[in-house]
């Protein structure tokens, strides 16, 4: 890893990161408004803490697709077909180059997105003090919300790494998008139910996903180092 290179990449993504804060904030507010009316029919979502966890995770699914699309633009496209020649001719070590790029992109994007979600969440919590949204239980458990936000950050980062890995390894932007959709279907229910009922299990799941994604990233670095431009 080269911190100067990571810093440089993050600087190049400043615009995207600002946009990401805004997009995630707006997405959370829209999800909040949509599900505010639906919560009455489900007793579990009548608690403000569960409700917040659910809307954070639902927003996360939108963000997964958005983040993967941006990953395709900022990382994967550089490794598709002959585009990679330009990077491979740089005298920095191909693997290190990819590692720096992925760490910079995933780290800065996921953090920006989490900042947007956090601002949105706290805005809703503040509003709930003044406006009666009709929750049966209005006692806010800040620790629980914090755990959900940390879980969100890790889950988003992991899936972004998974999708980037598939996109780079198989040189296909479409494959990267498909992977994030598969993750959405595979873990969608599990993430929502554990985030509301069993947060220990929730954190364990996201940490396992992060561990696997980091292993895949290292595998991808080794693959890139040995990759042949044969066409």
């Amino acid at each position, binding site marked *: 890893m080269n911190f100067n290179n990571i810093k440089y990449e993050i600087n190049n993504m400043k615009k995207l990161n600002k946009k990401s804060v805004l997009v995630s904030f707006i997405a959370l507010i829209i999800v909040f408004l949509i599900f505010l009316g639906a919560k009455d029919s489900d007793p579990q979502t009548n608690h403000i803490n569960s409700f917040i966890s659910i809307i954070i995770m639902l927003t996360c699914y939108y963000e997964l697709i958005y983040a993967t699309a941006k990953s395709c633009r900022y990382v994967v496209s550089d490794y598709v077909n002959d585009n990679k020649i*330009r990077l491979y*001719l740089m*005298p920095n070590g191909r693997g290190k180059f990819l590692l720096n790029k992925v760490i910079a992109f995933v780290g800065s994007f996921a953090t920006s997105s989490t900042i947007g979600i956090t601002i949105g969440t706290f805005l809703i919590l503040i509003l709930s003090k003044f406006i009666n949204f009709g929750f049966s239980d209005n006692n806010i458990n800040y620790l629980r919300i914090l755990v959900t936000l940390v879980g969100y950050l890790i889950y988003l980062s992991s899936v972004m790494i998974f999708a980037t890995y598939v996109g780079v390894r198989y040189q296909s932007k479409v494959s990267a998008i498909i992977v994030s959709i598969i993750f959405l279907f595979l873990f969608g229910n599990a993430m929502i139910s554990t985030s509301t009922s069993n947060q220990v299990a929730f954190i364990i799941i996201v940490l396992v996903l992060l561990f696997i994604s980091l292993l895949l990233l290292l595998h991808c670095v080794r693959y890139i180092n040995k990759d*042949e431009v044969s066409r």
Partner: protein
Amino acid sequence: MKNINKTIKNKVALSNANLNINNNEICALIGPNGAGKTTLIKCLTGLSSSDSGIIKFDNESLNNRSINDILSKIGAVLKFPESISKTPIESIFNQEFFYRGIKQHKSVNYYLNKVKLNVSPDTKAGKLSLGMKQRLLIALAISHNPSLLILDEPFNGLDVDGVDLMKNIISDFVKENNNSVLITSHSLNDLNDFVSSVTFMQSGHTLHKETMEDIRENYGGSIKDYYREVHNNEL
């Protein structure tokens, strides 16, 4: 490059290929389609690894340890990367400077002027015409003062003026610091008046290098005539 062998998907791409480029030399690598010219270039730049043989650059053998050092001395123009199409020219140069560790560099306009590219640095690379894109790639390739410039089919799709301009740019580059150029092209007539040597390639192997003096003497200075003769002999 000595005795380079390379097999791709059970097909011999390079068979005991040899290539030698001296300082202050413009070496043309010619041959029919599929002869292995681009594969040889990819082996030289580490884009592809050879199965056997020796590749040396300034007496330094190409391997995992030396590849970065060697790449810093090479500028290569292969294919235009579509991924930079939406990026302004200035950002592309800044990326190049940063990743090649060039701290003291001239302005972007200096490099654009060098290749006679009269566009604003804010222009997105994808907006340029084919010839302009080629010139942009050359400007990027020479921005770190390489000692060897590799050009793969640089005349493709260029009009007569474009070819002449390209030839001037290449000649200037060689004159500047005793640099060398390796160029592949099928436009053989365009090579006659500015290359200094020619290496013919067919079915993955190379013939010995002919100097332009030899070609002038034996083929009236026509690389095309030389090509026809050796190609027919090889068949």
